[in-house]
């Protein structure tokens, strides 16, 4: 996979052949080959068709955001508020908490507005996004197989309910390789209230090689574990140490011709570059005042969702392939109106800022922005004011990256219980995202335990209607 090592190989050999003596640390500085930490390619076969999107920013609302307080307006639920929901709808459907409760319609009073030229219906809890309706493709029929958080996260990210398979970002890193010289292909950030933990399985590489694993960045000036040099070690001292390690490894290579050594030299170089580039990434001072105001952040990252959005844009600019921003606190079994109100306040501005910012930089057309959770919520109330987990309907929207802007996909029945037309299953979602990135989901496979695994298992259809 590390094809670039051959050029490095030549350079180093050349160097050591020339200078048999006086292998000075100082001299090593001049050896810094710009190719050393260049992007790594993916598989030759991909993209297998011209991609619309080059990268993904996935705004992941963890806990299961309610579609009824956000993107799916259901007047019938308001009319029948408190009345039983038809049994014909609910029979045989997995429910989480409501397995112990009476099933009654629950209409919301948050208010919706037909927005923009496209007239898409968006709840008043999202005033910023309401202005961007014409950029969004709203899906209202998201369906999943898993009704509890942990397996649902795993399913939404890996296409399978049991841990052990690679997540979508890992698949893309594997298939398409990296465009970022000194950043990981797949970065995860989190924000939101201390709530349910998100299973790290969600960004695990599964059986793919470890380098495809999602790397968690923190929303702070030091975003990565072990990024800072030890106390008392200045950047120059760290650099000298690394150079010495590289020189010694090079000597070892001259002796053994083990290609892994060249890879290791490369990785040390990359690690050192990350020690500078990652803190740079987190330095917002270079952003214009207008941009800082757009996101509502300043100075340095503060761990908020909006701050993570700005970080995501900066990563996107630097070529990170798949950026996933988790925001917790959407699991509203009780007080769903207040809950969604609070969460919308957390994320609305950041989401809108990100879309506008990408657009003004000309990046929206090849950046796919996705917003959604691990499942939707029930049209029935839980305990009067909340909503339970729901597998049959849920909202998700996409923007940019080859998605048809200002459009909707899928309609739920009058109760919003399940898809009346055009269900959008997680497998279809995966197939469609891969398609936008230039990948036929049936072709991106990895052989493990004797089987050619795919993100979509044996399922999934590209949903053409959402393509621009």
């Amino acid at each position: 996979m590390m094809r670039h090592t051959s050029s490095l190989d030549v350079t180093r050999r050349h160097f050591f052949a020339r200078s048999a003596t006086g292998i000075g640390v100082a001299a090593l500085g001049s050896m810094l080959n710009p190719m050393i930490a260049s992007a790594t390619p993916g598989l030759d076969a991909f993209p297998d068709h011209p991609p619309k999107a080059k990268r993904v920013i996935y705004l992941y609302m963890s806990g299961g955001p309610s579609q009824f307080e956000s993107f799916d307006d259901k007047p019938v639920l308001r009319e029948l508020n408190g009345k039983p929901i038809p049994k014909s709808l609910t029979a045989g459907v997995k429910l989480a908490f409501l397995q112990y409760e009476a099933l009654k319609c629950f209409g919301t009073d948050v208010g919706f507005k037909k927005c923009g030229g496209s007239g898409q219906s968006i709840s008043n809890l999202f005033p910023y996004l309401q202005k961007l309706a014409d950029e969004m493709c709203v899906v209202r029929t998201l369906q999943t197989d898993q009704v509890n958080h942990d397996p649902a996260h795993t399913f939404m990210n890996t296409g399978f309910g049991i841990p052990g398979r690679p997540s979508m970002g890992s698949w893309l890193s594997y298939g398409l390789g990296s465009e970022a010289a000194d950043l990981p292909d797949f970065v995860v950030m989190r924000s939101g209230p201390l709530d349910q933990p998100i299973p790290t399985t969600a960004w695990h590489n599964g059986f793919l090689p470890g380098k495809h694993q999602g790397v968690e960045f923190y929303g702070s000036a030091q975003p990565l574990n072990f990024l800072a040099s030890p106390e008392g070690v200045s950047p120059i001292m760290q650099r000298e140490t690394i150079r010495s390690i590289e020189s010694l490894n090079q000597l070892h290579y001259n002796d053994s011709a083990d290609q892994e050594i060249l890879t290791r030299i490369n990785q040390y170089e990359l690690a050192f570059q990350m020690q500078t580039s990652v803190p740079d990434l987190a330095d917002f001072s270079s952003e214009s005042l207008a941009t800082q105001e757009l996101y509502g952040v300043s100075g340095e990252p503060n761990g908020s969702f909006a701050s993570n959005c700005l970080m995501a844009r900066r990563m996107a600019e630097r070529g990170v392939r798949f950026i996933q921003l988790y925001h917790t606190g959407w699991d509203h079994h009780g007080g769903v109106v207040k809950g969604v109100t609070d969460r919308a306040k957390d994320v609305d501005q950041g989401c809108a800022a990100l879309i506008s910012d990408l657009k003004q930089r000309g990046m929206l057309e090849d950046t796919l922005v996705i917003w959604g959770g691990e499942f939707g919520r029930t049209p029935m109330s839980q305990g009067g004011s909340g909503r339970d987990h729901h597998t049959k309907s849920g909202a998700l929207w996409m923007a940019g990256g080859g998605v048809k802007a200002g459009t909707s996909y899928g309609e739920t029945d009058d109760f919003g219980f399940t898809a009346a037309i055009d269900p959008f299953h997680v497998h279809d979602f995966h197939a469609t995202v891969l398609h936008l990135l230039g990948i036929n989901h049936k072709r991106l496979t990895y052989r493990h335990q004797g089987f050619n695994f795919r993100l979509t298992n044996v399922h999934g259809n590209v949903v053409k209607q959402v393509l621009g």
Partner: protein
Amino acid sequence: MFASARVVIAIPVLFATATAIVVAEERVEFNRDIRPILSENCLYCHGFDETHREAGLRLDTFDGATASDAIVPSNPQASEVLLRIASDDPDTVMPPPATEKHLTEVQRELIRRWIQQGAEYQEHWAWKHLDRPSVPEDKRGPRTGSAAIDAFLEAQWKSKGVAPVDFATPREQLRRLSFDLRGLPPTADEVASFESSPSDEAFLKFRDRWMSELAYAEHQAVRWLDLVRWADTSGFVSDEPIASGAYRAWIIEAIRNNMPFDEFSTEQLAGDLLPDPSDSQLTASGYNRIVNTNCEAGAIEAEQLYKLKGEHVRAVGTVWLGLTTGCAECHDHKFDPILAKDYYRLAAFFDDLVEAGVYTPGDRREPLHYVYHDPARSQRDQELVSQIKALRVEIAAKADDGLSDWEAQALADLKNKDSRSDFVWIPAQLPAARVIEGEFAATDIEGKTARQTTAAKGTLVRHHAAELMTGFVNQASQKTDKEKDAYFVDMWFDENDRPEMIGVQISHGDYGRLGWRTANFETYYWGNDTSGTLDQVQPWSEPGRVKRLGELPKENGWVRLRVPFDQLVGTVSGQAFESVGMAWLHTGGRVLWGDSGFELRRDKTTSLLLGEAAIRKWWETPTNRQVFQSRFSYVVTSLNTKANDRDELQNEVIRDAFCEQAQPELMQSLRELESELFTMRSDAMPVLVSKQAEQRKTTRLLHRGDYQDTTGPLVGAAVPEFLGNPISKDNPNRLDLARWLFAKENPLTARVFVNRLWQQFYGHGISDSLEDSGTQGTWPSDPALLDWLACEFRDGGWDRDHMVRLMTSTQAYRLSSKPSKELAQLDPNNQTFARQSRFRLPAENIRDTSLRVAGLLRTTTEVPTQSFFPYQPSPYWTSSDKVMFGSRHMLWDTSGERTQYQRSLYTFWKRQNIHPTMLAFDAPTRQECTAQRNITNTPGQALALLNDPIFVEAARVFATQLVGDTAITDNERIENAFQLALQRSPSIDETTVLIELLTRQRTHYLEHPSDAMSLVSIGQALPPRADIAPEVAAWTAVARAILNLHEFLNRS
């Protein structure tokens, strides 16, 4: 006609793929050449899975393939298969274009020739009967033992026309042996001694010595921990701690004692079913209990129980059978003849286990077994358990007469709002409790039972009991009169030895479990705490939640202390509290403690009194979360349900409560026994164990894995049919399963095991796919060698160490790992083992080796049962939402010097968040069974090695050692450093690089002594004197460089 075959010959790689090379004249082998092609391209639709079979055609058997002339033996032209795969019509070509699969020219030609040669099908290599192959002979005559292994390999080399490389250097050999056996390097002296006389005897002597060390068992155990996905936590969502430490220790001890593999496996699968099982055998049965378990509130019990079955089935498949059994959950296996029925029948073996589908957060996950240091206590524990059991049977045997009167009275009392009474929550003789802290002595005073505690003047003593059989109380919902409602404690003052301060504490938590934050405690006291303890933050108290209620009572003898509800310290916002226990404290004096509890209105006390029966019922039996979290009010809810509407469980708990309340004398005896048992157990080590339930769970053959579809038949336990050796016994249990695994007729267990062991000592398996020996797995490079090893293992009494000795005493083991030019070209993947392998060390070994070189590694002779908490990057666990919450909170309490430097396999293994350095170096999360770790090479590894404080500390302590000898030159120090870390001398070039680094660092640190001091103070080890800090800092850079070298990280 051999055109394409010649193309194959032209490929200059002999063994690069499983399908490999077929020389034109050579016979096409079904297993080697054809099965992989069919498996990959055809069997998904034309294979074993009947429900998914297209056109009724199956190609996985001779009969199926020839029935409809799809294949006509010896007549390719008449075989439909050949026409289809050669077709260029998209409507008829196979595989269909939509599958995105297509056959290569080479593959088509192979199939043609195979049909031409008669289309002979072969049984899959792994499932064939296991018979010992004869050892290839040469002029040296018959060869046995390790020489037999060499004979197999030499025969391979000869047939493939390759020559083995030379032997590795003695240093390389010894390092290899040491890392393979112990995961640690040899010392420089050991290497020097071996270099001076590198004889076979010397090599084997090292081997035998190292195999006798605990380090050997520890290192070997890691593979098993990966396989059985051992971890410290439950796996899902809040991922909370489980009592698995003793089971890990058991694995290490068993390997240390070279317990035969059949016994080793049987005790894990079914230790509890052995006659009169020992502590150790019960501990081993923890294997069945370290499954991933869920406690999400909305999880569905029935669904989760099926998920648990999957945990068991997948594990048996990976650990012993090399079968991907999990694939048959939703449908018959696509490639291997494993039926969906086989999946569910395997699952049924585990239906006897006591386990819940959905636990409450923080659940201890009963059943637990308690291990004591003192065998007499174990004995007493068993006695008490059987006495309690007998007494409970006696209590439950009460006739129903009186039940309706009792019920009427209870219902009346539950409505009684006119009178008041006490609820004795924690009697003087403590009820059964999960948490008992502090010392006390049981005594009597004035005819009443009491607990006596004494404190020296000016010191505070405290004892605490929580998580009680008598329940947990939501205080807020008890309130009816803020002045009269109160907590009370009866106590006895000794007029000759009065305390200076007396206090009572209420402890809280969720789900009836004790929380961990100081906010979970509130303290009330009288008098003056001259010890000052309550003014400071304690793990169990903080000053803001301590309240003085007045002077000490003037009276002596029995006195009642009251904490009226209107005096209570408020709860902390956002924390739903239940009172789960009390603590009793005093400063100075002698105090006797009587009953503690609540003074409440009668309806409230009645309700609280009725809770005990349900708590007792589920005390040691896990049950679904919905029931369990409401257990304390379960009896009352049941009584309040109209008799006709009550379900079976409600009737059952009502009867339980009646039997208990109607027989106070028997209950008194029962409580006494329980009190003794759990007081004793509060000091013992709890261990997750397997236990047979009184009632088995059921397993249905699910349609497409859907637990909601209950139309499938119930199935009983059975082993996969296709293996052809069923267990001939009705209702076989886990013990029968274990015995079947080790029966002579079962060829899989031995093959799978020796293949994995081979990988450990030779770099990759004889079959590369350690996790899958099915038809999709990799064809073994030498099936005869694999079978010979498997027979040696099986027939030699499953002696693991014997196999290790065999594999490490071959000539092949000691070959160099550097390929010759010829081998690099002919056998790039080393399928012939004509050289050794080089690979990066596992995560644990890298950290352990760094600590060993620094002299920091702490080894013991006693296997720890607790994990330690290494240094962690601060956002990693402490301040992220990855922490466990509610009462399941657990602080990351970084281990002190005593345990910080333990071997890495004892790292706290939180499945959702394993330590970032372990993760960076490809250690598995242990959410799933792992037969083989990935080996990657990433910048994250570089960052961890450079900047993780444990490695920096190792480097600076190593540097301190190097600087210690002041009489030597820098060059000599570098020599020493290389010897310690790599057991060799540096080259001139290497020394030059390091001297230059040293010089520049030295200059820097002399100019910046405070930087030097910062660097050399990292970690917990004592920092060096300030005056030598710059020198140590400069050498720390040198040490860091060495500890980061590729050579340092690799076994070759």
